[in-house]
């Protein structure tokens, strides 16, 4: 088990990072910190999927002069580029909602907002 995990240390690190992000989402009271936790979770998943495409001693998947095998798998990188853009979009929307909540209620602490209801 430990040997296998040691081989897959990159994946294991992503999983730990994911749990750290989830911890922030659950325990933090400040809405902005919750969204930071959400971003940490997203980053963990991105790192995990990009790491899936890595090949030992691989080069960037750019053909042309001087390009040599083996190449890194281009597919995870392309998919994660899409993922990053969508993550930016959702973060922008989430932060603008936080700004709106602050303007309306004067606070962005989750428990104070619950009391104010």
């Amino acid at each position, binding site marked *: *088990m430990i040997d*296998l*995990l040691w*081989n*897959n*240390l*990159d*994946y*294991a690190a*992503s*999983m*730990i990072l*994911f*749990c750290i992000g*989830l*911890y922030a989402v*659950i*325990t933090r009271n400040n809405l902005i910190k919750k969204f930071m936790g959400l971003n940490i979770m997203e980053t963990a998943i991105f790192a995990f999927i990009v*790491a*899936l*495409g*890595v*090949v*030992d001693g*691989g080069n*960037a*998947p*750019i*053909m*042309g002069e001087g390009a040599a095998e*083996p*190449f890194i*798998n*281009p*597919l*995870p*990188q*392309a998919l994660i*580029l*899409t993922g*990053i*853009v*969508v993550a*930016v*979009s*959702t973060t*922008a*929307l989430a*932060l*603008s*909602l936080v*700004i*709106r909540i*602050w*303007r*309306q*209620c*004067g606070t962005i602490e989750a428990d104070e907002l619950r009391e104010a209801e």
Partner: protein
Amino acid sequence: MKRALTIVLLIVLAAVLLNAVAALPPHGSPDTPAYTHVGAYYLEHGPEETGSENVVTSVILNYRGFDTNGEVTVIVTALMAVIAVLTGVRDAGNRPDTDATHVEPSVVVRFIVRVLAPFILVFAVYVILNGHVTPGGGFQGGTMLGALVIALTLVLGERESAKLIPQRPIRIIQVIAPLTFVAVGLAGLIAWGDFLSFPRDEQLRPVAEAMLVLIEAGIGIGGAVVFARVFRLMGGRS
């Protein structure tokens, strides 16, 4: 109590995840399923089928062009949602007191940003236009352009920075990414019979490259404007 419960829950979750991760094929081995099927095909045929030496770009803009078309629509939709949330509605009025919180950026910051601005601009344009032969592309360069506009907004002050985003053409420019994408897609539909189809002949390779560059430029400019606009909206500007 809540914290202890959370930690127990996360330890259980981490144990499950690590167990699953340990069962994956070893990191970096070239004969994993992820590497031997679709990715191998793209690596082998990408350059001659798409006219892009950068296989990541050929996947993004050609093989999975539909996906990216939806993606640029997502950015514009997010901008529209931010506009809808932050403008035009009366609220309780907890606006940031700009006079009280506004701090003049130091001379060093202003000087550095002004000196670096043209170089950042040139590098961003280079990254956008060379996305099909070097690492980079529309999204990456667009992010740099957007960051440049944001940095200038921070140092230039209210009136000067408003000129960075001219009011009237912005309405078209902020949706230019999906527009160029659809335009190039329709060109492919008319010329080669499929939406977003690129010519595969060796003679027509410059045409395919031109289409790629056009899409990259559209994504770069559109993305930059969206980022800058979202930032300004969050700061209570227009």
